[in-house]
């Protein structure tokens, strides 16, 4: 079985306290579209954090599907824009995101 570096969950960021300074000093938390959060696998502090935020565990495939759906929706919205709006400053087409194992 392949070794996993990361685990994923879905949780809604409620704001202050969702990720504390103490959390961030213990392990790396990365956020993705669709309220998908990536933390290290096999890490007790990360497991406690997922419990704290009432996160719903996802496999990397499930998490990827959520992120891809969000990105594709944003890409479709961008594609539907009139050309003049596409050319507005900073309005570049959203890019694909690939989650690592």
């Amino acid at each position, binding site marked *: 079985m392949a070794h996993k570096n990361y685990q994923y969950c879905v949780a809604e960021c409620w704001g202050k306290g969702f990720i504390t300074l103490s959390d961030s000093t213990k392990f790396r938390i990365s956020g993705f579209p669709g309220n998908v959060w990536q933390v290290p696998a096999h890490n007790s502090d990360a497991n406690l954090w997922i419990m704290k935020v009432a996160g719903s565990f996802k496999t990397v495939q499930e998490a990827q599907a959520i992120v891809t759906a969000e990105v594709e929706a944003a890409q479709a919205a961008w594609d539907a824009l009139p050309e003049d709006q596409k050319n507005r*400053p*900073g309005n570049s087409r959203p890019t694909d995101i690939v989650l690592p194992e």
Partner: protein
Amino acid sequence: MSTYYQIFGGKINVISSDPTDPIEGQVFYNTTSEVLKYRAATTAGAWAAGGNLATARFGLGGAGTQTLALGFGGAPPAAGLTATEEYDGTSWTSGGSLGTARYFLTGAGTQTAGLAFGGFSAPSGRVANTEEYDGTSWTSGGSLGTARSELGGAGTQTSAAAFGGFSTGSSNSTEEYDGTSWTAGGSLATARHQLAGAGTQTSALAFGGAPPKNATEEYDGTSWTAGGNLGTGRFGLAGSGAQTAALAFGGTLDPPITTATEAYNGTSWTTETSMTTARRNLGSAGTQPSALAFGGTPTTAATEEFTGAGAGVTKTVTGS
């Protein structure tokens, strides 16, 4: 075997809740959570979640400090927003609305003496409007000489600098505000837009942008000179702090959008702990060791707070 008392000459505090202001090295047992804790200093910078903006947006302006910040304008919609929000270190609350809806504007000053200038609004295009905030409402100030969006800014409400941006193309012009009107300053060596700024009117810093993505320039109130290059070249980034102690975070490498954070010491940039969520065209406030990031693309209401190394943090004793 020696006891804690024999070594340190005092007993461990047994309390039902964590102390509100523990000192570094303090050890205590929390009877509610039934864990032993201690106060330590962080050895590296870290980002933590702050309160969410009431209105998710990108291309907004920012001013103030990490615990007294101001966020204003932004998009969507393409016509721009007038909404202003004030941060108290925990949550955002509504402030007075901008007179001119816009996004890709820039801010300077404080929460109770803020400045908003430039920006973009569809379908009218780039604007030269300046507005001044007094903690309650915005009033019109002198207009920029050149209407532009995606510009850099630095300084205070009565002593600000606007530099770079996009007018008919990428701009290298600098303008200085005295609380009443804008006058021309020294030109950036490299024209650019979607750059970030930090510092004051007479000691400003411009970094990143499109193009060039990694160049840094330092302003002395008269002219710009080259500084150290960003390690991660990018545009749509945000900045905070001073010319000799600045922080750069977020942005896009075109693509991807990045979480990269770097600290400037007046000479060179070094890598800092990355943001939690990648975003570009975000708002910012604060200093190098206490920065605030809010909003951005993908359109979000999320706020993140950066705390530099050396800050106090309460840790739990774990393991056997």
